[in-house]
């Protein structure tokens, strides 16, 4: 039951059946932008695109989310008491997520699900979501997943991995949730040895197709203080305009802000995506700002991903090699170059 083959044309049918009693998300194209959206019709899903413009992080950490509500009406007994806004945690299925983006969720678990604290919204969504991943037959030129402990068909973080075999799809269950999905829907036929071999050949070809490589082997052992004080930050930050698009599209940028909004006598406490690129992010009430300079903010972003995270969790870099920031940066700051500078092998 763990490896099934279906005809490609059966996929919308499978999604349609799941949609009858579940929420299903998939990549959807809107004008020039692609992102993961809640499907209202199975046909909206578009699996013929490479990495979505926006990462799917909003599925676990919405760009803006109401957390608590309250009344300020003094006549009411519960005035000024915050109460948690109920969320829908019914089962969800995400189709077509790429292995790099699934890996990003695993990395962010380290932040949102620590031994000491659990972010309830993140943890609940993670637990009730089944990730049906689609491997990358044709990686982009900006992809470098294979050098950051990942790959176009890596299984980490996925519940089901789909391999596009041409006219057919191979569905491999990787976790308990994945088995459940294939068992409950009873789709397709058991994969033959020849099919599995063909899939492996595709996996191998995809890996070979990734030409972009970044060095990481020295990041852990290099001195944090030396890297922080390195001269190359001046050059790295020079063209940056602090627009924050890198953080916006990045699947491993999770920083957020918490705000209160009030209308008449009631209000909500909400959280919004935030970014280390903005001066306000760290501005003290006193006016002091530990990262007032652009250089400090640019350095913070790269140091966080390629050094602080590495040292703190001993779990590799906080970058999955999706290449979105490389594609979107308006001034062509390329994280692959920063890898080289930080690892110390650049010319």
């Amino acid at each position: 039951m763990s490896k099934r083959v279906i005809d490609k044309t059966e996929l919308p049918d499978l999604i349609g059946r799941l949609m009858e009693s579940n929420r299903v998300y998939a990549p959807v194209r809107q004008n020039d932008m692609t992102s993961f959206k809640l499907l209202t019709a199975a046909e909206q899903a578009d699996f013929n695109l490479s990495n979505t413009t926006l990462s799917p992080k909003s599925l676990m950490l919405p760009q803006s989310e109401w957390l608590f509500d309250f009344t300020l009406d003094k006549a009411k007994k519960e005035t000024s008491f915050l109460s948690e806004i109920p969320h829908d945690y019914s089962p969800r299925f995400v189709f077509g997520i790429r292995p790099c983006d699934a890996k990003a969720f695993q990395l962010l678990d380290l932040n949102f699900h620590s031994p000491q604290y659990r972010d309830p919204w993140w943890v609940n969504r993670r637990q009730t979501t089944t990730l049906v991943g689609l491997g990358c037959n044709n990686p982009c030129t900006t992809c470098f997943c294979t050098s950051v402990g990942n790959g176009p068909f890596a299984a980490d973080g996925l519940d089901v991995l789909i391999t596009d075999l041409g006219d057919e799809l191979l569905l491999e269950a990787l976790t308990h949730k994945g088995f459940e999905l294939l068992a409950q829907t009873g789709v397709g036929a058991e994969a033959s040895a020849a099919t599995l071999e063909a899939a492996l050949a595709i996996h191998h070809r995809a890996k070979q197709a990734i030409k972009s490589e970044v060095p990481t082997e020295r990041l852990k052992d290099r001195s944090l203080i030396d890297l922080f004080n390195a001269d190359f930050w001046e050059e790295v930050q020079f063209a940056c305009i602090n627009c924050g698009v890198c953080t916006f599209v990045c699947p491993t940028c999770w920083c957020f802000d918490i705000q209160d909004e009030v209308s008449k006598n009631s209000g909500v406490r909400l959280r919004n995506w935030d970014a280390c690129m903005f001066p306000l992010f760290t501005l003290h009430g006193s006016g002091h700002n530990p990262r007032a300079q652009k250089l400090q903010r640019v350095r913070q972003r790269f140091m966080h991903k390629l050094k602080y995270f590495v040292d703190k969790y001993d779990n590799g870099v906080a970058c999955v090699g999706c290449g979105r920031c490389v594609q979107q940066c308006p001034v062509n700051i390329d994280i692959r170059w920063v890898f080289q500078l930080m690892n110390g092998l650049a010319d």
Partner: protein
Amino acid sequence: MENPYFPYPVRIDSVAVETEDRNLKTFKLVFEKPEHQGKFVHRAGQFAELSIAGKGEIPIGIASSPTEKGYLLFTVNKVGLVTTALHRMVAGDIIGVRGPLGNCYPWDKLEGMNVVIIGGGFAFTTLRASIVYMLHPGNRSRFGDITVIYGARTPGMLLYKEELTAWERRDDILVHITVDATDNPDWKYNVGFVPTITQEKAPSAKDSYVIVCGPPVMIKFTLPILSELGYPPERIIMSLEMRMKCGIGMCGRCNIGTEYVCKDGPVFTLAQLSQMVAEY
């Protein structure tokens, strides 16, 4: 699952103006629900997020000692949106408290040692908590000599004046109060900046830990004097401040290198800080 973002509702029991500029007030807070009081177990040096519905949250050091039961004290400087709103509030109003958050002063290491406390300005809140904690009859014998050096710009800017006077009269704690300047002829304590008074009083480094909290300029000039007196960096303890939101190491803004001030701090030794990047 316990939601770490949920503030426990508390009622403002009383408000005391601390300083002559009326910019610092101490809020005494009482839990609205007994079960929340039981869950809020803090140690001196920790902080909490004070929550005002419709305004937001602010991280503030807990000024009351764990030995003071049934209420919490927070001394708040009026600076921005939330603190200004809080300063307008009165006894009976409802706010929220989320915590306790962060680490505390290293009480396991301080036990059996002499403790020197050096504070400046309004950074005396968790130091008050520490002094009250150590002076508690059940705790006093667990510590050696206790020395306090506390300074403010003027006599009217000192926090907790009545308690300072009471501590000053005791024989189990040595208190050096100082002001930068005063034209009050009745002022019977020290005049001079905290670093100067520290040099003058020269609290012995033998078997001692020192906790230093104050404005950056005070810290800057006090640290070299402590080194001269023989305090190793491992026994110089400081508490840092940062802009914070979540308070639980998740929102990403208060880091100094690998360390989140909210969760891995706010208390660090000078030895730890010297291994961290200089970005605070």
